[in-house]
């Protein structure tokens, strides 16, 4: 079953720049997809449309049965509750410790504390930060902060996890640690879409890879077929 389906999606910004040309794309439930391409190729625009930060100019985007293109701004939260998003700059709240940052994503839905507590501990354990639950973001390393962000993104058990250059600020070793965490989350059934510049990582992970150029998918590599030298 296709979890994400794009049909004839076009995105033109107000200044006239066309970021995405007639794009068709199907992503299945449980997939792990990398999106790569040079700066300005439209990969950020593509995923921004997936979590409805941007609206497509034309075309259809279906995510888990929800027509994202038709979603009104005030209803965006309905989509956001089904997907988790991770960013390069983590976007953690500095006044809250790791535990609170993760619990925050649950509290706003009015979930009782007794239910939040085990879930938060579970996801912190999953990202390997159970013993740093009480640390504040400024006391954590970049990799650890990103893991908190991932924990926050998955605590609501989203079907899809969107990662916008999650390793962009991290060194190679830390990046691989993050990738291991993401791989594990993927194995638990969450579909992951990740934008990255780091082709070494992409090659080592051996997943499906979409290569974008000038707003079009120029190549769709099957699992394990991507080689860093091939482009």
């Amino acid at each position: 079953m296709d979890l994400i389906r794009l049909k004839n999606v076009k995105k033109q910004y107000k200044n006239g720049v066309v970021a995405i040309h007639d794009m068709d794309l199907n992503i299945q439930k449980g997939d792990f997809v990398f999106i790569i391409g040079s700066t300005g190729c439209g990969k950020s625009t593509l995923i921004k449309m997936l979590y409805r930060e941007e609206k497509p100019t034309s075309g259809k985007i279906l995510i888990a049965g929800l027509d994202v293109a038709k979603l009104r701004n005030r209803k965006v939260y309905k989509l956001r509750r089904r997907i988790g998003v991770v960013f390069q700059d983590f976007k953690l709240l500095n006044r809250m410790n790791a535990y609170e940052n993760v619990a925050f994503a649950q509290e706003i839905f009015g979930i009782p504390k007794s239910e939040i507590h085990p879930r938060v501990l579970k996801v912190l354990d999953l990202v390997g930060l159970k013993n740093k639950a009480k640390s504040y973001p400024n006391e954590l390393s970049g990799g650890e902060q990103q893991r908190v962000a991932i924990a926050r993104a998955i605590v609501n058990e989203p079907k899809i996890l969107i990662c916008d250059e999650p390793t962009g600020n991290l060194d190679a070793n830390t990046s691989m640690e993050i990738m291991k965490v993401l791989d594990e989350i993927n194995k638990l059934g969450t579909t992951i879409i990740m934008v990255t510049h780091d082709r070494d990582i992409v090659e080592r992970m051996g997943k499906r890879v979409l290569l974008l150029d000038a707003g079009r998918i120029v190549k769709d590599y099957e699992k394990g077929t991507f080689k860093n030298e091939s482009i």
Partner: protein
Amino acid sequence: MPVELLKIMRKERLKMKAFRILGRNIRDAFKSVFRNFSLSLASISCITITLIVVSIAIILTSNVNNFADLVKKDVTIVTFLDQGITEEKIKEVEQNIKKIDGVESYEFQDKMDISKDMMESSDTFKSIMENWTEDDTPIQDTFLVKVVDIEKIGDIAKEIEKIENVESVKYGEGMVEQLVAAFNVVKNISIAIVIALILVTAFLISNTIKITIFSRKREIEIMRLVGASNINIKIPFIFEGLFLGLFGSIIPIIITTYGYIGLYNHFDGRLFSSFIKLVKPEPFIYMISAVLVAIGILVGMFGSLRAVKKHLKI
């Protein structure tokens, strides 16, 4: 399990959920006031200063109104009847006064009673009036008429004057009308000032909170990102505005309460002469306090809502 029961349970669960969200929001809003203390302080002082001015305006208006009411109550149409009028004729006049619209009450004063009162009030009067008998006294029987609406006193006086056996009427012509007009002007001006002040404060607070919220743009962004609905985001800020208003009204209430009681006691309840009476502090100060809290809260909430809306894509 029967469907009805399931429905009730679902309803209860939703209610609990709403309470939990509300509780969390109130707690967070309270914390946030102290966390962003310097900015909160700016909003609070803004509210405080305006509320003090609003309070002064309310005190002034209320006292002017109070004074106006007292004066209005005292204004009477003195109706002089013809000399040597018979009892029956007096009854007739009374019936006619009763018939007039807008007459609140009337009171008959016998000429002998009036002279008795006058003689008691001063020795000079006594020496002059002592020898006047019922038949040769120049004092006339009178009706003291009070009206419902002081602005119509002129018309009513004219109608009374037309009644048979009424010799003349007196009600402080001219002076009363001027006084009423002056009171209305003062009242309207103070109401305009209060409304203008409230609007200005709402605007100022909205801007102050806007700065506060700008520093928390990131927080709003993250809330949106993890799936908070607009109302979810707005509520804590609305409560924060409520708390700012609440805290902002504390000092004005203290100043108003103790200031007014002090003022009242200092002047012994009247201003300049016993003619101008001040409003009694109780329950007046409670009323003002309630109004100040209400204005503070509403203005705080409104300002906060206005500010947060800018950062929400609606």
